[in-house]
């Protein structure tokens, strides 16, 4: 038998190590930080019972009760930087410890723009396949040009000159997958300014979800590898690795499913995230890998990506 193959002609896709669930135990903004360590302790006190519920639930689902649950914490360093990792990280760890909570991984939000030289946000933006309104027959002006993504058809805009021809009748927007009535959502993904592209918070949060689901690849490689940390943290956010492993015994960062325990003020952001995630096309080969692995563990994953992403709003 003769075989011939060329490396540059083949696609090779690495697979990601996966936990059962990745639980986000908090998200730190500048204003939270300004309220001090007590605010964080309060937040972790609220989160702890929910984390226990998630663990219990997965122990019951997994044969032998060997549930792999990893926890993570996201620091917002995009929309206003504050303090230094050397100060903030130990403070977060201490507040978590005080509540008997272990944070396995810590990530900075700017990593969702670009991590280790990989433009993650661009990677996801290129994979958006907008939900087509009825009567979409082929190519149309897309999100990549407008920077907005909707779940339906926008209210028609009067064309210039039309206003001269008498009163305009308002027409409603419409959700594509509506059930009787519409809940129309239109999300701004980015703004292009003099300093380049500024990605919106929901867009970066979508990248964050995809990272946690282990579904992103850059030229077949895993784009972000958690880096183990000792007890010393840098004085500059840029020197902090995109994802830091705080707990050496942690199960993998990425997981089949995600659960985020968040304040209700994130409700709108997460609605936008789900609007985005339901329009991202993930590499079928990567999806297949995850499917196969979960089947080997006799787990049944939701077919649709957004159904693998869940929340507790407090």
């Amino acid at each position, binding site marked *: 038998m003769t075989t011939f193959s060329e490396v540059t002609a083949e696609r090779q896709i690495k697979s990601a190590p996966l936990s059962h669930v990745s639980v986000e135990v908090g998200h730190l903004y500048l204003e939270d930080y300004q309220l001090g360590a007590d605010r964080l302790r309060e937040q972790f006190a609220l989160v702890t019972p929910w984390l226990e519920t998630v663990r219990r639930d997965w122990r019951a689902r997994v044969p032998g009760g060997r549930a792999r649950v990893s926890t993570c914490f996201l620091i917002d360093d995009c929309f206003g930087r504050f303090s230094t990792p050397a100060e903030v990280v130990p403070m977060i760890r201490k507040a978590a410890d005080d509540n008997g909570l272990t944070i396995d991984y810590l990530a900075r939000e700017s990593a969702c723009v670009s991590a280790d030289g*990989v433009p993650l946000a661009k990677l996801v933006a*290129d994979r958006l396949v907008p939900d087509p309104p009825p009567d*979409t*027959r082929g190519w149309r002006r897309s999100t990549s040009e407008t920077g907005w993504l909707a779940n339906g058809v926008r209210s028609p805009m009067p064309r210039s000159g039309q206003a001269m021809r008498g009163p305009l009748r308002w027409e409603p927007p419409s959700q594509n997958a509506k059930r009787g009535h519409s809940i129309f959502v239109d999300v701004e993904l980015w703004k292009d300014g003099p300093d380049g592209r500024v990605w919106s918070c929901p867009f970066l949060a979508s990248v964050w979800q995809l990272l946690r689901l282990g579904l992103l690849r850059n*030229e077949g490689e895993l784009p972000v590898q958690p880096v183990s940390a000792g007890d010393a943290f840098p004085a500059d956010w840029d020197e902090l690795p995109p994802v830091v492993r705080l707990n050496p015994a942690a199960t993998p960062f990425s997981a089949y499913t995600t659960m985020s325990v968040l304040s209700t003020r994130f409700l709108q952001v997460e609605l936008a995230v789900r609007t985005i995630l339901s*329009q991202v096309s993930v590499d079928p080969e990567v999806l297949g890998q995850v499917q196969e692995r979960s089947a080997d563990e006799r787990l049944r994953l939701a077919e649709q990506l957004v159904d693998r992403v869940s929340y507790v709003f407090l």
Partner: protein
Amino acid sequence: MLIMGEVRTGLLQNSAEVPESDLSSVLGLLAGERVRISRRPILHALSPDLLTGVDCLLPSAAQAKIRGVGTVVSRCSITGGRVVQSSSYVRVTKAETGHRLPWSHYLARPGVIEVLGKAAAADLADGFLAFGLPGEHLDVGSISDRLMDTVQAAESLDRASPFRSTQTRLRWVAASGEPGVRFVLGEGVERRVRITYEGEFSTAVLDLCEDLALHDWLLTTLLVIVERARIGAAPRAEVSARLAPAVDALLHLWMPGARIHPSLAPLWESLELAPGFTRQWQSLVERVRDQFAVNTLALLLRETNPV
């Protein structure tokens, strides 16, 4: 139920052959995804797959209103640094429900269009191959066009082609069954191909259609060049000058079946028996070379026996 697609084939808008080192930037349409390049037996580069969402009526020969929802897969390739192809296709299947589902359902099935309601594969196939104006119907061409434009607008191309040529449009439908192929040459730039294959559909069928489109385009283009050269009517030097671009850009690209799966090779071979693409190509190539030989001889004779 049915797979249908369209391949547009044309000349890359660049004066010289595009070198291998530039192919990744020309076809790099998706961040984080490599352009696949093979060098044997001919330089061939393939872009990553792109998806486009659609929700519209599907073509129907019986003018039936058949609504389909899903995604079209498109990709672009460059062969020999000269010929560019943009190719789009869909697998049409029957939906399990009569209404449209959340978009994530369709994204989990890339390249599938689900038909809401009744549809007959034969009616869809005939409708698609009729090349009617898109009107209210699925417009695969607009997607291929857009992709072609994006690639032709790449920064590293100088947008000067070595000769005038036209794009061809090959539409194909495929279904499983007793292996076979039917190729219908249209009057203009349209070609229709019906394929039946054994077993499950794979992109090998797409590779075959792209290979057919590529060689049909080469043949079509060489025929036009030979015709424009006005052999026998124009002065020999002029004829040679008009044939030169073919020698520079096209003659070495003929490699039918080089990139297709062995299981589909018999289909190519059957087209070689009738009508015999390679037979016609060989005869054209010989004609071109004979013209050069005759012209060279004439020049030599003029040098040795000046008038």
